[in-house]
């Protein structure tokens, strides 16, 4: 701990359940970046490594402030995102609680390291602040980044607003560190729409923190001489693949995805499930995630005011994909619209591949590259679908 002449506040250890459900909450007016930093403050994080990138830069700065106040045990700025994500991997492999964050091109640069995290069974938490990643170069909000992360083996949450960003980051640590889960969690926020939108966020007391991470219950031994029982190799098997069973490598991959399945009951316990469903018997269903869910929610309210029979499904958890919940929620709908903040419609593909009679699905409306999605755009598509133009 650095001697920087500040008094480190005494803090009380509480459970994630207490912090999420029982603790008194105080209203603050925060942008998403500030909300996630408040979560890091309460998550008793050992190590933060970051490289600032728009629209993530504020959380890099704010985590530095937390370190200066003694609320994070170690912190530094990496040389670039690949350095950052490899450092995060090293720290988590050594058995400490890690937070990092990046965005768009930073995610792409670090993808080699990020794709290794689940296989090493690292319970670190990374906030992805989504922005465009190219085609052409773009600094504006876009959720296409999730499409690149879908098959990494990470658990993926998609937040709707700064409140979600706080709550889901706390839940992320509690879920990721379950011994039978122990894979990383990506907490994904749409850049600017969430990271820089200022909203009322209800926070539990700053004096309460989660218990420290305990590497002794991890499903893999920590690579640290101070963590018993002993330092031992846990190399990925491909390193010596000429003498081992390829079945072992395949089974290792299966185990990562098995861990995702095991996360479901903890997601249900700590996040109230993977989906939020309103008016499930409606004729028209809006299915969305992230800030598209916020716009769809407003569109649903307006449509119902106009007399349309519209329901709403917010998909909070993208991996493990809530297949049963989505199939159940879509069972009665005649029309399903899936608004998204990306060009290619990855969420629509996820839903289409699971529900039957998927000709019911209209994969849109979609906007991207920084364009906004007014609720009227969604309303207009609904009216087109039911043949009743406004």
């Amino acid at each position, binding site marked *: 701990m650095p001697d920087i002449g500040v008094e480190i506040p005494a803090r009380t250890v509480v459970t994630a359940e207490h912090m999420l459900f029982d603790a008194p909450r105080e209203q603050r007016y925060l942008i998403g970046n500030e909300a996630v930093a408040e979560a890091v403050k309460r998550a008793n994080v050992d190590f933060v490594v970051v490289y600032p990138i728009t629209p993530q830069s504020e959380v890099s700065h704010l985590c530095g402030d937390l370190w200066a106040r003694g609320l994070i045990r170690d912190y530094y700025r990496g040389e670039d995102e690949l350095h950052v994500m490899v450092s995060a991997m090293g720290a988590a492999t050594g058995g400490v609680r890690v937070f990092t964050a990046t965005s768009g091109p930073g995610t792409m640069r670090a993808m080699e390291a990020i794709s290794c995290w689940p296989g090493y*069974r690292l319970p670190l938490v990374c906030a992805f602040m989504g922005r465009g990643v190219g085609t052409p170069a773009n600094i504006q909000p876009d959720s296409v980044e999730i499409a690149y992360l*879908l*098959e990494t083996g990470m658990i993926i949450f998609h937040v709707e607003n700064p409140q979600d960003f706080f709550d889901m980051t706390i839940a992320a640590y509690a879920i990721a560190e*379950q*011994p*039978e889960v*122990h894979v990383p969690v990506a907490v994904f926020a749409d850049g600017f729409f969430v990271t820089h939108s200022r909203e009322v966020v209800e926070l539990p007391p700053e004096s309460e923190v989660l218990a420290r991470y305990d590497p*002794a*219950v*991890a*499903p*893999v*031994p920590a690579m640290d001489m101070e963590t*018993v*029982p*002993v330092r*031992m*190799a*846990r*190399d990925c*098997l491909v*390193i*010596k693949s000429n*003498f*081992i*069973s390829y*079945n*072992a490598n*395949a*089974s*290792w*991959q*299966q*185990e990562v*995805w*098995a*861990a*995702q*399945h*095991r996360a479901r*009951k903890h997601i249900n316990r700590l996040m109230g499930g993977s989906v939020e469903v309103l008016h499930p018997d409606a004729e028209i269903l809006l299915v969305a995630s992230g800030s598209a869910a916020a716009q769809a929610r407003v569109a649903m309210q307006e449509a119902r005011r106009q007399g349309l029979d519209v329901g709403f499904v917010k998909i909070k958890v993208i*991996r*493990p*994909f809530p*297949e*049963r919940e989505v*199939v159940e929620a879509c069972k009665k709908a005649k029309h399903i619209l899936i608004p998204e903040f990306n060009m290619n419609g990855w969420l629509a593909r996820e839903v289409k591949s699971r529900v039957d009679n998927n000709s019911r699905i209209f994969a849109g409306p979609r906007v991207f590259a920084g364009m906004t999605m007014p609720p009227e755009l969604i309303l207009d598509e609904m009216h087109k679908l039911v043949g009743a133009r406004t």
Partner: protein
Amino acid sequence: MGDTVTAGSPPRAPDPRYRVVAGPEGYLSPAAAAMGIELPDEGYSLVEGESISDSLAPDIIAERLLEARNPTLFPGPLVLWGWSDASIRKARALQELVAEVPGMKMIPMPDYRPKYPKIDPAIEINPNHPNLTIWHNEIDVCVFAGVHCHFANIALKIIRSGTDCYTIALCGERGHEDAMVTMRDAGDVKVASITAAVRRLKAGGHDA
């Protein structure tokens, strides 16, 4: 089960017919969790994928051990190293269990690294090819204890995939879906309850 069942990526709907039974299950068997098998809640164990009360599991395990031709304990690093009072107590309890089951052997899983040129299956088991140890020693019932969960799961699945060995996992954490029987939170007390069940069955005339 059928021949080859592919693994659970992306997550799939659970198969209500799926049971975790002795293999060989196929070329690449699925992780049981991907087939809808869920770990037991506190106070419960899993038998072939079904949740049962912890109070029933010791008798089931004891019976399997006593009926086995070649029962074998695979102790892992968490009980091979005396790194905590709890690990020492569990290791001693496991030694008592092995002593109580006629003919039961111990073959350690001392670490997890792939080894050149290959392991000696007569003296150790390795998570990368646990089937070699099962085949070489003709083990029909085995008990995993003190193996880190990730490596236990990999080994249990490979054993189910390629051998007919009946697997039992005494897990200090949440249990293992890929074992035919698993107890969670299994420290020295739960191991001792299995030993007590073995003694009871033997006293009742159970013929090993």
